[in-house]
Structure formats: structure tokens, C-alpha cells
């Protein structure tokens, strides 16, 4: 396996791209924290800082027609799947320009154009959806892959086990990516699972599974490529346990009473961005001016996105009832419900 530590960086151009991708996620979320502190955006905000190598490495291996399912910690997945930073931030502002027209917020980013299916805030809730998306591909004879991201907390839920079983039983084209950052809110893995080797659990369902250093973007990409290729060529479901760490609190409300600062500091020494940056510099592949240019580029992208979000328009309250049911030409039903709050079909049809 290629690792940053033992082999340096093989392809400087590609490494530069991965570095950029990780940095985009980092800077976007640092901005989110800032905007949150300034009360520009609200709700629950879960940042991915420290885990960027996972989304960056995995997304790299996907084709545009593949599908992605993620959790509430999904800004990075959305961004690297191709949703613009502007649409993501506008969503958090509750603006009409947001990727869900202000109905989703930070935890529910969706984008049909890039087949990004969320944005699910129910732990493990996305796993059965991924199984079904893969089932649809299988039944329609499409060579597509569905990738499902979830935290290790999801492993304790029944839906995890039901999904593993179904995917393996029906040999569906789905790649499960468990982002094992060791904590489910404040609950350490060892306090929630009798068996802490997560790849082993997947293997129990006859799913090829392996654990990967989730701080090493090249290792993640290589493993993901191997898995995605196998899934795409009919090898059935595959499973990656990506061992990573979140440097920040679970959410903006978390006082982090459950772990030592020294533990966090230790993991931060393996910051996936510094790791790649350092390896590239050591190999003479990242001249100072290129690194400066890269940072300036990313900063410019994010500040443009903030401007876009900031100048957006609040989704009008008159549109409140839209998208509960589909808009349809014939609004035959739901007579006599005026004032009952169930006029949504009408609202939809009119809007």
C-alpha cells in the first residue's frame, strides 16, 4: 500500500490536487465556524476538520453517475462531490440559492445534479437508502456504484446490520465507508461496541472489508479505488473502515468533556493536510510559492462563496408549503382543508 510515510508522493500533480481538495474542505468549515460564531448561520453544525482525507480520497475514485449518501457531517462530502461552496453556504443561510432552498441546512445537503443523497441526520438512516440505490442500479443493469459514508456510531444500530446483510445477500454495488473517528458524540468506541474491529464486523457478513489509515489521503484513495473498481465490476458490496479523528468538538454545542486535550494534540500531529503538505515539501514537490498560490486560490473561492450566500435571498415564507408533496398539474384532492394546514398540495401546485 502506498503510504505517505514510506514512499513519498508518486505524482506531484495529483498530490497537489488532493491537497487542494482537502484544503477547500478545511477552509470552508473554518469559515462555517466563523459564521456560526457570528450567528449568521444556525442549527446544529458538525465540522469534519481532521477527517478531510477520507472524503478527498474516496470522492476521487467516483464517476459522475455514481451516487453518494452521507451523514450530517457532510459539508466536505458535498463540496468534493461537486456542490459549490456557495450553494452549501447559502443553504446554511436559509437562502433560496441554497442547495435545498433553505429547507435542509447544514445537516441536510442534497444535490440531484451530482447524485448527492444527503445529508441524513439519523444515525445509520442512510445505510438502507444506499442499499436501495444500489439495488436500483443492479436491477436496471447500470454499472454504477453507490458510496455510503457513516460514522462508527452507526455500527451499533440495527440498520447497519440489516444493510450489511441485504447488500451482501443480494451482492449489491455499494461501497460502505465507515469514518471511524473513535467517538460518537462523547461515547468512545470501546464503550459502545463489544467488538471494536469494525472491518471484522463487515467481514462477518461476507463483505470484503479492510481498515485504512484515514489520515493518509493517498492510502484512502488507493484503497477506495481498489474497492470501487471491485464493486463496479460486479464484486458485490465492499467495506472500508477509515481510521480518522475529528479535531474539533462533535458540534458547536459540545464542551468536549470526554477526551483529553493531549489526545487531540497527538492526532493533530497527523493532520492529513500537513501530512501531505510535508511529504510533498520533503520531496521537493511543493515550492513555497505554489503553496502560497494554492492557499490564496482556496481562500478566494471561499470568500466568493460567502459573498454569494450573504447576498442571497431568504426563501420566501409564501413557499413554506412547497415540496411536502410534489407539484402537480391536477390538484384534484384535499378539498375543504382550508385553514387546516393541509393545503400543501395546493400550495405546491400554485407555487
Amino acid at each position, binding site marked *: 500500500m502506498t503510504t505517505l510515510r514510506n514512499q513519498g508522493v508518486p505524482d506531484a500533480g495529483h498530490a497537489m490536487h488532493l491537497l487542494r481538495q482537502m484544503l477547500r474542505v478545511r477552509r470552508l468549515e473554518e469559515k462555517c465556524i466563523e459564521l456560526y460564531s457570528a450567528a449568521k448561520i444556525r442549527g446544529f453544525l458538525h465540522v469534519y476538520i481532521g477527517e478531510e482525507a477520507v472524503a478527498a480520497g474516496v470522492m476521487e475514485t467516483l464517476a459522475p453517475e455514481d451516487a453518494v449518501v452521507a451523514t450530517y457531517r457532510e459539508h466536505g462530502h458535498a463540496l468534493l462531490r461537486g456542490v459549490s461552496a456557495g450553494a452549501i453556504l447559502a443553504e446554511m443561510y436559509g437562502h433560496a440559492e441554497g*442547495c435545498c432552498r433553505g429547507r435542509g441546512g447544514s445537516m441536510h445537503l442534497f444535490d440531484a445534479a451530482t447524485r448527492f443523497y444527503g445529508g441524513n441526520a439519523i444515525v445509520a438512516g442512510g445505510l438502507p437508502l444506499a442499499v436501495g440505490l444500489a439495488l436500483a442500479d443492479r436491477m436496471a443493469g447500470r454499472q454504477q456504484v453507490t458510496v455510503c459514508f457513516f460514522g462508527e456510531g452507526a455500527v451499533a444500530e440495527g440498520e447497519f446490520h440489516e444493510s450489511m446483510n441485504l447488500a451482501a445477500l443480494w451482492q449489491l454495488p455499494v461501497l460502505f465507508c465507515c469514518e471511524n473517528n473513535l467517538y460518537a458524540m462523547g461515547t468512545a468506541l470501546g464503550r459502545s461496541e463489544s467488538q471494536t474491529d469494525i472491518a471484522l464486523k463487515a467481514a462477518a457478513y461476507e463483505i470484503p472489508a479492510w481498515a485504512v489509515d484515514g489520515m493518509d489521503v493517498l492510502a484512502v484513495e488507493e484503497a477506495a479505488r481498489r474497492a470501487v473498481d471491485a464493486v463496479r465490476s460486479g464484486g458485490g458490496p465492499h467495506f472500508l473502515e477509515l481510521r480518522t479523528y475529528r479535531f474539533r468538538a462533535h458540534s458547536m454545542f459540545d464542551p468536549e468533556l470526554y477526551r483529553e486535550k493531549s489526545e487531540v494534540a497527538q492526532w493533530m500531529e497527523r493532520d492529513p493536510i500537513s501530512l501531505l503538505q510535508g511529504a510533498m515539501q520533503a520531496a521537493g514537490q511543493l515550492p513555497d510559492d505554489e503553496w502560497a498560490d494554492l492557499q490564496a486560490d482556496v481562500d478566494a473561492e471561499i470568500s466568493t462563496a460567502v459573498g454569494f450566500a450573504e447576498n442571497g435571498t431568504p426563501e420566501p415564507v409564501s413557499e413554506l408549503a412547497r415540496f411536502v408533496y410534489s407539484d402537480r398539474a391536477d390538484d*384534484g384532492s384535499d378539498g375543504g382543508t382550508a385553514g387546516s394546514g393541509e393545503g400543501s398540495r395546493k400550495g405546491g401546485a400554485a407555487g
Partner: protein
Amino acid sequence: MKTTYREAMRAALRDAMQRDERVFLMGEDVGRYGGSFAVSLGLLEEFGPERIRDTPLSESGFVGAGIGAALGGMRPVVEIMTVNFSLLALDQIINNAATLLHMSGGQFNVPIVIRMTTGAGRQLGAQHSHSLEGWYAHIPGLRILAPATLADARGMLWTALQDPDPVLIFEHGSLYNVAGELDEDAGAVGIDKAALLRQADGSADTVTLITYGGTLPLVLEAADQLAGEGIGTDVVDLRTLRPLDTHTLLDSVARTHRAVVVDEGWRSGSISAEIAARISEQAFFDLDAPVERVCSEEVPVPYAKHLEQAALPSVERVMAAARRAVGAGG
């Protein structure tokens, strides 16, 4: 053509599978076993195991997979053995199927149809006998159907499959064996309107009996007997519990001036409560009497026959409520 509710359901499934190759049926024992209520009997031989797909016992998993398949462009019909077991899939139904369109700002439709049996009357005890469709009718984003007649058993499925949004179909277990005449060429029916199945002639005291699903046969019987007592009845079959066709109800109440709601669900917080509230909100001055409700006793449905029957709506209780409504004594 003589047929049964079960056969009408099966004909609807067969028809849908023939018409649209994206349609498939998935659930526990729908294939080799033939369906736990024999609705899908024979369809495996006809359509094969890809499209008549047996699932493991994992309600949340396969309902969620159905939702995913709908997102992926298929038209899944997911069968859950009974509404009691659907509780294991509540997360998927309510947190995903009902919300994805809205949360995605209109980007992701979930055109899934979920069928399940509901209701009591067969001495199956509490965990197989409850009527929870009223709960589901609480959820925006879902459409809730309750076919009570052969025509609806035959015709609602295809219409539901054309709906871009999630539709839940509740089939009362006591209806499967109901037999009757159905047109040879019976097909899809609308799912937007309640049906006025019987209309009072207006000569004497009148009352509107409002019901749906499994209690429709006993309400019709009560209506017959009430006619013998000189009480005229409108009978409204709701057909769809969400969105409710309140128009048809209010039109009828405006003529009869009285209403009895018959619902096998429990009274507290039920669909009957919603209907009574709407009538009082929107037709208060049409009413000559308080709205009456006939619901199940508020106990988990018991096993023993006499206890079970005592807990459920009956012809007698419907008649007593109608008499009270017209002031003829209960």
C-alpha cells in the same frame, strides 16, 4: 366477474408489473411462500425472483432499500406483513420517505408504495391487531390509502404507483376474503376523493356515517338496519386518510346535520378525532347534534374472542351512536 379482495389486489399487482418494468414487489415471504396473506401467490412463477423479491426479516432495512430504489428510479411496492411490524421501519418511512422531497428543496421524489395489513378481528392478539393508519395520516409527505371495496383493491395500486410521492396502502386483514362482483375491465381508480356510497333520502331523520377500510362492511350493515328504523344514512368511505377529502364530508353533513365517525383505531388522538375536529371547525352551524365517534376501546386488542369483539366497533355500537345523534335514544 366474481372475485375477492385478495384476488383484486393480486390482479392489481400483476397488472402493474406487466405495465411497468420498473415495478417490483419486495417483502418478507412475498415470493416462495406466496405472501403471508396469499396476495402475491403465483406471482413469483410469473415474474421471477428479481421482481418478486423475498427479503430477510429486517423491516427497516428493506423498507429503506425500497426508498433508495425509488430514489434510484425504480417503482418499488414494499409489503410489510402487518402495521405492527412497520413500527420497526418507522425511521425510514417518516424520517426518509416523508421528508426527502422537502429537505432536498424539491429535488428528490420518493415514488414508493408501501402496502401493509391492518386491523383486528381474527384473535391474533395485540401485536398483530392494531390499526395505526391514523398515526401515519399524521405525517406530512405521506399519502395514506385504505381500500375498503373490491374496486379500490383493484384500482388504487396503479394510481398510487403513478404518484411521485410515497403512498402507504392499508389493507384490513378481514377484507381479503370478501367476495363480490367486479367489472371484468375494472382498472385504476382515483385516490383523491372520498366516496358517498349511500345517500339518505331525506324524508326522515338523517345521519352521515363516516368510515374507511375494515369497518365499512359493518357500517353498511348498520345503515341497512337503521333504514328499517326510519333513520336515513349517508355513508362516506374516506378511501384516503391523507390528504383528507373534507369536501365530501362537509357536503354530506350539510344535508344530514349529524355525523358518526367509525374508526377501528383508538379514540384518543385518532383520525376520528381529526375528522370530528374538522367538522366542528368547518360545519359547526350545520350540526343538529354533537359528532359521535365509534372507536376501539382503549386497550391493546385482546386475544379472547369475546374480549376482542367487545373492544372493536360493532354494528350495534354504530347503530346506537346513530340513534343518539338523531335523538332517538341510544
